[in-house]
Every structure is written in C-alpha cells, then in structure tokens.
C-alpha cells in the first residue's frame, strides 16, 4: 500500500511537471507551427492555408498598446512591403485579452491599422489559443516560418532588429537577415534573438 502511494505521488509529480512544461514551452527552431483561423480587421477569417503561393510567413505578435510594438509599426509595414511579393508575407496577430486591454479591442485594431496604413492582415487571437502554442511571451515577438511538405517550420524566433529606438541606428536586421537567408537557401546566422517587450495580457 505504501509503495502504491509512493508511486502515485511520483507519477502525479511527473505529470504535473509535464503539464507545466508543455504549457509554457512553445516552439523552438525546427518545430512545425500550427495554422490558425482568426478574424482579421476586415471581418474575414485568415489562415496560412489561404496563401497557396507563399514560401513562408513572418508571423508577428503585436498590439496597439505596447510602446515597443508601436515603435516597430512602420518597420513591420516595411517588412511586408519588402517580402510579401517575394513569398514571405507578414501576418500580424494581436495576442492580448481585449477585456484587460481595451486599447486592443477589434475596433481599436481597425483604427490603428487604418491610421498606420497596415498592408498586412491584423488578426485577433480570440480566446488566446494561438500565442501559447507558439510560445510568444510579449509584443512584438516574431516567428519566421518556412513552408515545407510537413507544414510551416519555425526558422527564426525573436526581435525585428537590434534597436527599437531608432530605425536608422539599426546594425542587425534580424528578421530581414533570416528571410534573406531562407530566400537564398542559406543557413540563418542568428535564428533566435531577444528584446524587451510588453508581456502578453491575460
């Protein structure tokens, strides 16, 4: 009896441990990313599957209310302008709970996209189901995916570049370097980077 109890306790501990790690881990380089079907600011639902001609995607978790995300809005727009017609469109996903952050409600997303002239879809992660699977923790948080037979493979995770304050002072264009490398069939020199951002609001 004692032994059974011990086994039970050990098993419980193991399972709790597992459930914790699966909850928080998210994707690493080489993982296959899940597709999604999320509402865009124009009312349509958008999936990666809607882009049969894309070679991959620049999935950008961003929002209206984080100053870091705002500092990068123009640069996200530029990424889409530069890479959409080369096969790597930007798809932006707003991961915050709009009840916690009213500035990130769908109406506010529409207004922001219009004011900034977003040329890419800006989707609401309704129910916050997608960002935890990716493992996004903050805005902005970028995942560059490459389409393969098996599905979209995660090739880059991290920041857009190395200077949120001043686009002109950027020395390392991490996302551009990653997509350029994919387009040229070369390995990505820096597949993971980190930057300060606003934690995603539950």
């Amino acid at each position, binding site marked *: 009896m004692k032994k059974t109890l011990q086994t039970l306790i050990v098993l419980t501990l193991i399972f709790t441990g597992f459930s914790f790690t699966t909850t928080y881990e998210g994707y690493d380089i080489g993982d296959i990313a899940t597709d999604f079907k999320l509402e865009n600011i124009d009312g349509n639902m958008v999936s990666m599957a809607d882009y049969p001609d894309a070679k991959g995607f620049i999935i950008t978790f961003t929002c209206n209310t984080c*100053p870091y995300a705002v500092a990068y809005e123009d640069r996200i727009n530029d990424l889409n302008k530069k890479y959409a017609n080369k096969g790597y469109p930007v798809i932006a996903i707003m991961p915050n709970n709009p009840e916690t952050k009213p500035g990130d409600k769908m109406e506010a997303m529409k207004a922001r996209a219009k004011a900034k002239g977003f040329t890419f879809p800006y989707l609401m992660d309704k129910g916050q189901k997608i960002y935890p699977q990716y493992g996004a923790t903050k805005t902005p948080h970028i995942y560059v995916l490459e389409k393969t037979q098996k599905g979209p493979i995660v090739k880059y995770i991290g920041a857009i570049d190395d200077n949120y304050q001043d686009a002109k002072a950027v020395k390392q264009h991490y996302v551009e370097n990653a997509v350029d490398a994919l387009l040229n069939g070369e390995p990505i020199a820096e597949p993971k980077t980190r930057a300060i951002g606003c934690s995603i609001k539950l």
Partner: protein
Amino acid sequence: MRFIYFCLLLTCFACKNEPKAQNSQNEPEPTVAVDSLKVYNFEEFESLLHKKDDQVYVINFWATWCAPCIKELPSFEKLNKVYATSNVEVILVSLDFPNQYDSKLKPYISSKGLKSKVVALNDPDSNSWIPKVNPDWSGAIPATLIYNKNERKFYEQSFEYPELEKALIQFLN
C-alpha cells in the same frame, strides 16, 4: 539641441563634483544623470547585478507604460519598507524610453513618492544584454531578479505581495 547636450554635460559634471554619499562607494558611474535619475547603459549597469556584499538585492525591471508593472510596484515598495532593516535593497530598473524620462518617469517617481531606489537602463541593443540578466528571460516585463552573493533567482512574472515576500524570504534564511 546643442543647448540640451550642454545642459546634460553640465549636469554630469555637477554630479561628479558632488561629494559621494556613504552608501554609493561601489556604485557604477552612469554616463548621464538627469536631475536625480541615474541612467545607465548595460555595461555600466551590470555591476548592480553582481554585488558581493551581505545584502539581498531585489531588482525589478519595469516601465511607467507597463500596466502589470505599475500594478505590482506597491508590493516592491512595501517590501522595501518592511525589510529596510534586514539588509535588503530594492532597485527599480526603469526601461522607459529616454524621451519620456522628463515627461513620464520623473513625474511618476515624485507623484508616487517612490522610496525604493530607481535607476533607468537605456541600452537599445537588448538582445546583447537580456541573456546577461538571465539566460531564460524572453525580454517581457515585468521581470524580477533576486540575488545575494551566493545565489540568484529570476522571475519573468508579476508578483502580489505575499508571493514576493515568500520569494525574498528564501534568501534571508
């Protein structure tokens, strides 16, 4: 613009000429000090993460625009007050944008009457320094490092006071 630089320069000199306070013997010198706010780049800031004295340091990364940071700030203030005589030092590291030091950060510090030490960290190349704070930090704030000369723990999360106190107490025993 030049005038502003001149003022900054003056402020710098003014600071350096001041007689040093007793507890600031081991303080790194920031490049820029605006009024009473010390602004560090990471290189200057890093020594605050590796002090070898007998104190416990509670280093909280925050910004005035970060709602969960503002929400938990009173817990850090309370911790600072309750454990003031227990060799605990709370340091609030602001990641506010430099163009908001005067318009947002300093007014916030004075209007809330923050008693904990506040410094500003301004180093835009965060990919280079985030792993030096902690290898597991994704870069999201709020985030908190608690350390003494023997051990350190990093928390990428928000705190309520009871959890924060519990986290600190591990370092006091």
